[in-house]
């Protein structure tokens, strides 16, 4: 969300943390209520006034201050952040997550998910039975271009372009992971992209945007007829939501809208995008317990240097942090990974995947 440079000096982390402190502290001191729009009394998806609050949580990713609430519409089961963050709020909470302090970690996570990216690319295989693959593919919300990097091994003849508002996509172009980088907001760039792509993909993108329907309108107008739109989003109907605020898919404060499958399918159909393939089990990423325990540890013992922290724990806090992250975490991690793996087959059977993936073709 910010213009600030994406890289930090890893040898001088103390300095990096400290240099950000004044700005964060100043913003927090001015009050964080201003980061929110007024609370909605009707569902943004179907206008029903039948809302119920299903979750009240803090920032479980970065421990920035603030309370976020998710409401579910009792009529259409759409889930959304209410009150919702405004652009200033989004800027505050995204900062140092995909860039700055958070970048190294998030890149390391993305870097290891090759198998997932290839599974996504292979969802198109039945539609290119001769093995030729699509000619040109635009990945919206491309991040650092990891998907494009790995999807190439599945579709070697395809041109992969990336669109993102962060700097990462430009760097990906320099590395050759994406062929052309489009930096900015999709709504601003849609016009010049019209008709240029056979396939548009949106992985973990729609849950971040302010208005899903507008994005789908644009995708429908950018695609030529016969073009494919691939979408992957969290499944708000998954029973894994019993993890409550610790469930990684709620991902507060970044995720704003959670469309249940029937709602998204109907919205696609409305735009002449006919769903041709829906994947639940194949899109499940078995990390729910691991991420929940990471969040819990992060809550139990946050990084003492975080520039948005308003209280300091002193020397005892430092020791506690070291003990949790050097002693407990390494022992816990293998256990949670095993637990997630053990849970996966069950999740596949009951249709409770934490994500779902839809492929739709424009008529």
């Amino acid at each position, binding site marked *: 969300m910010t213009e600030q440079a994406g890289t930090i000096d890893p040898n001088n982390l103390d300095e990096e943390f400290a240099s950000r402190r004044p700005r964060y502290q100043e913003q927090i001191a001015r009050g964080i209520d201003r980061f929110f729009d007024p609370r909605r009394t009707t569902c943004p998806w179907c206008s029903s006034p039948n809302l119920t609050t299903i979750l009240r949580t803090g920032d479980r990713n970065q421990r920035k201050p603030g309370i976020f609430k998710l409401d579910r519409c009792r009529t259409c089961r759409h889930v959304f952040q209410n009150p919702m963050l405004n652009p200033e709020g989004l800027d505050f909470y995204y900062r140092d997550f995909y860039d700055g302090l958070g970048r190294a970690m998030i890149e390391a996570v993305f870097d290891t998910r090759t198998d997932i990216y290839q599974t996504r690319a292979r969802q198109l295989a039945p539609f290119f039975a001769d093995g030729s693959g699509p000619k040109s593919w635009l990945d919206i919300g491309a991040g650092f271009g990891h998907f494009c990097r790995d999807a190439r091994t599945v579709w070697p003849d395809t041109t992969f372009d990336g669109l993102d508002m962060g700097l990462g996509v430009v760097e990906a172009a320099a590395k050759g992971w994406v062929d052309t980088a489009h930096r900015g907001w999709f709504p601003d760039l849609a016009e010049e992209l019209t008709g240029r792509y056979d396939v548009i993909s949106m992985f973990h993108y729609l849950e971040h945007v302010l208005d899903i329907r507008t994005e789908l309108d644009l995708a429908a107008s950018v695609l030529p007829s016969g073009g494919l739109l691939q979408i992957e989003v969290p499944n708000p109907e998954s029973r894994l939501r019993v993890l409550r605020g610790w469930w990684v898919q709620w991902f507060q404060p970044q995720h704003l809208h959670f469309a249940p499958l029937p709602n998204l399918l109907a919205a696609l*159909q409305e735009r002449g995008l006919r*769903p041709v393939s829906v994947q639940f089990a194949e899109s499940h990423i078995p990390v729910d317990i691991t991420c929940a325990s990471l969040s819990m540890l992060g809550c139990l013992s946050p990084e003492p240097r975080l520039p948005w922290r308003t209280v300091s724990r002193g020397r005892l806090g430092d020791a506690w942090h070291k003990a949790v992250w050097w002693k407990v975490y390494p022992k816990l991690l293998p256990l949670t990974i095993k637990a997630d793996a053990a849970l996966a087959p069950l999740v596949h059977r009951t249709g409770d995947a934490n994500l779902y993936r839809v492929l739709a073709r424009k008529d």
Partner: protein
Amino acid sequence: MTTLEPNPTPVAPSDEDFAAARPWYAAQMAAGVERFLEPRLDTCPWCGSDKLRHRVTTGDLLQRKPGTFHMDECRVCKHVFQNPRLNIDGLNFYYRDFYDGLGGYITEQIFAAHTEVYHSRARMVTPFLTPRHWLDVGTGYGHFCKDAKTVLPDTVFDGLDMGSGVEDGQQRGWLTNIYRGQLPDLVDEVAGKYDVVSMHHYLEHVRDPRAELDVVARIVAPGKYLLIEVPDPTSFTAKMYGKLWTPYYQPQHQHLIPCRNLLQALAERGFTPVRVQRKEAHLPVDLTCAVLSTVSRISPDPRYPWLPEPTAADFRRQARVWKVTPKLLKWAWYADQWMAPLIKAFDGGNAYRVLARRNV
């Protein structure tokens, strides 16, 4: 669609009327009724999912015309639809002599018995506006408009329908202006003229409800209202009655839309739903209609021109069955009224109503 001239006062058709209709039906049925069906869909027409579940298979529950009909349910979005659906010829065949012609007399009696429901529909809009011009789409004979005048005495009610009933309605003074035909063909004549456009038990009859909503979005001006009432396929009553559940209404009903889907479709077209009613829209007729449907299965009116030439035995059987039927119907009707509060409290009812305002 009609075989008779408009009749301002309802008159039961004579035996000669029935006999006169016979050659047309004989010719239609000789060519086979399978031709009335389109190819079966293997995806949901609402959301495109291929997870379909068979819900009911029935014959003609209303008139016992020949033919078998299937309704499927989408397991993803819960949309219920006739699959395979009827083509235009099929709709003409099965609608003929139901709302007008030979069946008009009976159908009208049923329409006339719903004053309470009609009042409650009219009352739904009063907190939001006092309409001056109201268009009722799929108005039939205009019974709703007649009764709604009690609630809204200063409102001018116009009616639109494809059947000859609208002409009767106008002659009886229930409808001020009438439009006869299909809504999409009449857009230019009605667009922007009305404070409220209502569609009561209309959308479930059309072949493509979304296309119909596209049309109505052109008719309702910004700030004006759209009132829709349709059966609720997610109602518990559907499970109680199985294929005898009135809203399956085969072969006429093409699409039964769950409330959440309809609200989304309205939101997509720039409508803001301002009020949803479930209890108030419940039509307490399920048991009565189930009895009627069963009776007409055991012993349909032998004069029906789509049945084989009646014999004396058919008439005797009809006479025997109708000795007990009136009593049965009376009990069923009381039972329906008695169950209605329970159903409303427990489930909401077999239909729902949405009032939506066109966004400015």
